[in-house]
């Protein structure tokens, strides 16, 4: 492998924003997550919890509620008073409709999926009809005195429970009038001064309404009589979220102390038919408020101010007890936010609204642009970026206008010699633009094949400038011949999304990494998988390799050694040496540093192709600058936590 000098970079001030809402879609097993800065991410839970789609956000669009409706449609509503529908194919916003009720605090889709209910600041509950192309306002329900903070439909769609401040109202959907008004006790730690805020309600099919409030109580109400049935005092702080499973035999609540409680319906004695709700399991996976929870058939999902997304599969619901049943904590992004210019030793950091350009060895240029400007790549740069779909793209040089079809770019990539720019637009087409001194010239457009652009588009260009690889269509990775401007071949489709893509310098092998930790190597000139790739697919990867949590986000190559592939994920980086034998399940995958006093025999026996180092973690980016130098961008978790909002005080004995 050799020795390398490593630039350890820790000044990338990446702070993700806290998670505000989570919505689980049962049919497609997808999770929509919205954050406090307005970004919405979609995770594919069956593809190893990979973040498939990403909608960049804006503070004005900060969401307070998120829900799925019939036909895989995603709606969100926020404090700017608008209901937004997202276009999951084109990765932008379809439309936004003002609800005219002031800031919207909560939203719920009816069990049938055809109606949408919205709770507003002025105390009104509005009903919208979901049409195939748009939503339409139907009517208002009775107006309440204070803001409606949580909503829940009865599974039959006839009644609604709405939680506001100090009271819960039950409405009848047909008439729109409030049937019951249940007052909630304000007492919090013996004091009744602060108003009791009902953060969440859930309506069960037997007429029970479960409410969670800011006094730390979980209360069960009977909606037929409007009376309180049972109270559980669960925490000393707010209980902020609740989610019920589809079978209605378990629900989960999240508190402001970071604890998540699981309640289950268990029979009173072992053979009686009478059942009651019992608090069964506490989970402490968060340090800050848990603002949202979701309940999938097999797992509990929680997210909060500490920016982690925690997915906890329930052991009794999981069929196969393998590594899939382990706890998953998603902290770091699944896309690459950093790009590096090797010749100039520059690093480009991508933040949500600006870009930072740093020089290695000393910090010279920190260009704070507004997000609308892209600092053009210098000679020898490759700057792939994923741009905000709403912002227009401008080049900072004297370029006057950009053509209209370049309105929303999903991915931008410069060629190796910086004369060409490849832009993947969100309509599924790929544009090539030649960059000249003061202007540009549009060369060619590769239209999308039949079908639509599904997941995040990744681009890779070969160092000699002949080939361009693009992933993102469900039909596999397309390889285009740039010189002749036509489609060269297509790598066969694989059912897991692509997480990283790169083309080797001399051999023009396309290396693809998928979200289930599989790696393929495809030879572009030969139009087939390489020998090495076939061997490793036949043998299979080491089981520890397949059990890694985080996806591979970057692949690069050594300029002088064609047999080496360098790749990394958040907790390790690995150099694959294709000349060495492959490990099977019995060998040690994570080799310790080779000690010099070990005998040669042992070293030969344990040497295998995957040289993994866990020295620098958590890694956001790792690349080879030249033959002897590596650059590793780390982001210690403590630095992120240090910039989070204040958590609830915990009193521990002895402090």
């Amino acid at each position, binding site marked *: 492998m050799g020795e390398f000098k490593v630039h350890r970079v820790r000044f990338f001030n990446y702070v993700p924003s806290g998670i505000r809402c989570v919505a689980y879609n049962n049919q497609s097993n997808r999770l929509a997550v919205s954050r406090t800065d307005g970004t919405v991410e979609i995770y594919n839970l069956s593809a190893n919890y990979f973040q498939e789609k990403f909608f960049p956000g*804006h503070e*004005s669009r900060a969401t307070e509620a998120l829900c799925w409706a019939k036909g895989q449609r995603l709606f969100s509503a926020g*404090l*700017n*008073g608008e209901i937004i529908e997202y276009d999951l194919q084109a990765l932008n*916003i379809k439309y936004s409709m003002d609800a005219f009720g*002031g*800031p919207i*605090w909560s939203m719920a889709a009816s069990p049938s999926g055809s109606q949408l209910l919205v709770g507003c*600041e002025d105390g009104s509950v509005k009903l919208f009809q979901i049409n195939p192309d748009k939503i339409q306002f139907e009517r208002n329900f009775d107006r309440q005195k204070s*803001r409606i903070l949580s909503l829940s439909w009865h599974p039959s769609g006839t009644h609604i429970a709405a939680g506001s401040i100090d009271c819960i109202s039950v409405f009848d959907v047909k008439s729109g009038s409030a049937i019951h008004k249940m007052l909630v006790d304000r007492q919090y730690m013996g004091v009744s*001064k*602060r108003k009791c*805020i009902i953060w969440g309600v859930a309506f069960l099919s037997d007429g029970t309404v479960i409410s969670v409030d*800011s006094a730390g109580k979980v209360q069960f109400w009977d909606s037929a009589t409007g009376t309180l049935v049972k109270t559980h005092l669960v925490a*000393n*702080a*707010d209980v902020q979220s609740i989610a019920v499973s589809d079978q209605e035999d378990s629900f989960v609540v999240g508190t*402001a102390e970071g604890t998540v409680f699981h309640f289950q319906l268990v029979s009173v004695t072992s053979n009686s038919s009478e059942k009651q709700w019992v608090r069964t399991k506490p989970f402490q996976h968060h*340090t800050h*408020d848990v603002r949202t929870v979701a309940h999938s058939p097999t797992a509990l999902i929680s997210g909060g101010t500490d920016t982690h997304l925690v997915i906890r599969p329930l052991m009794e619901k999981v069929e196969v007890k393998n590594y899939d049943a382990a706890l998953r904590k998603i902290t770091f992004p699944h896309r690459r936010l950093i790009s590096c210019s090797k010749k100039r030793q520059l690093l480009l950091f991508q933040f949500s609204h600006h870009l930072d350009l740093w020089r290695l060895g000393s910090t010279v240029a920190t260009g704070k642009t507004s997000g609308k400007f892209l600092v053009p790549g210098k000679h020898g740069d490759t700057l792939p970026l994923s741009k905000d779909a*709403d912002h*227009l793209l401008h080049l900072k040089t004297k370029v006057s206008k950009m053509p209209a079809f370049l*309105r929303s770019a999903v991915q931008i990539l410069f060629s190796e010699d910086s004369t060409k720019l490849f832009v993947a637009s969100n309509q599924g087409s790929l544009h090539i633009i030649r960059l000249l001194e003061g202007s540009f010239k549009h060369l060619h457009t590769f239209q999308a094949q039949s079908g639509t652009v599904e997941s995040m588009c990744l681009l890779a260009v070969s160092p000699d400038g002949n080939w361009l690889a693009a992933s993102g269509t469900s039909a596999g990775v397309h390889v285009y011949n740039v010189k002749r401007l036509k489609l060269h071949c297509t790598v066969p489709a694989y059912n897991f999304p692509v997480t990283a893509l790169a083309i080797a310098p001399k051999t023009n092998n396309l290396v693809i990494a998928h979200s289930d930790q599989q790696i393929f190597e495809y030879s572009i000139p030969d139009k087939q998988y390489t020998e090495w790739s076939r061997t490793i697919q036949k043998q299979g990867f080491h089981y520890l390799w397949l059990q890694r949590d985080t996806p591979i986000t970057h692949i690069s190559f050594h300029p002088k050694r064609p047999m080496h592939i360098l790749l990394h994920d958040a907790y390790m980086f690995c150099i694959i040496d294709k000349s060495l034998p492959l490990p099977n399940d019995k060998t040690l995958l994570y080799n310790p540093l080779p000690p010099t006093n070990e005998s040669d025999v042992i070293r030969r026996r344990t040497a295998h192709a995957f040289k993994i180092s866990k020295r620098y973690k958590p890694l956001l980016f790792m690349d080879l600058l030249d033959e002897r130098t590596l650059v590793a961008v780390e982001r210690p978790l*403590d630095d992120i*936590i*240090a910039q*989070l*909002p*204040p*958590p*609830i*005080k*915990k009193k*521990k004995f*002895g*402090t």
Partner: protein
Amino acid sequence: MVQLRPRASRAPASASAMVDEGQPASEEAEHGLLLGQPSSGAAAEPLEEDGDGDGDEWDDEAPEELTFASAQAEAREEERRVRETARRDKTLLKEKRKRREELFIEQKKRKLLPDAVLEKLTAASQTGIKKSPGKLKEDNLQKKNEECEKRSESKKVKEKVQSIGQNKSYVARRLKDQDLRDSRQQAAIAFIQNSLYGPGTNRTTVNKFLSLNNKRLPVKKAAVQFLNNGWGTQKKQNAKRFKRRWMVRKMKTSKK
């Protein structure tokens, strides 16, 4: 029963009462009603008796001989003085307020564009509406409007100037609605901030939270963020500058 000697009242009603009711008091006195007010006719009774009925025992201090009329006059003077000062204060305040308002009006005038430009704007906007039927991306302009929501109205006008000047197509929005919507949004954000992080919530800093573990270890460690890097930044900058200059000077002298 002890017969108490009738005493003249020591503390009559307040001077102002005396002054105001000077006339009726005299009438009452004439009627001989002893309501604690000595008759003005009998000018011999001193108003300010320091002793009581036993005054004749302390003969060394002869009580002051004050006529009722003089005392009344004094009281009236005082009253007048008080009134004068109050009036003066009020007028001073009024003047101050007037000056301040004028200042504000002037400042506002300075901020607003000159009238000529504003007239040109409105003319241009009307022609602009007729010219360009197309629509810019609504999101863009929404963002622009929301970005300038915090600035004053005049600056909003300026923003519109730019867009009209470049002859782009746009979407018209009423600024009054924007203000209402913004105030509601601010109120909502304030509500959430107050209910989660406001008074009455039991919050602590991240540093203290993470250091709890360190405190309970068998060998106690320091807090997680032990150093306060934001302390004395100005001092540190000055020190850095001084050091640089000192080095340069040192280099120069050593060269010589």
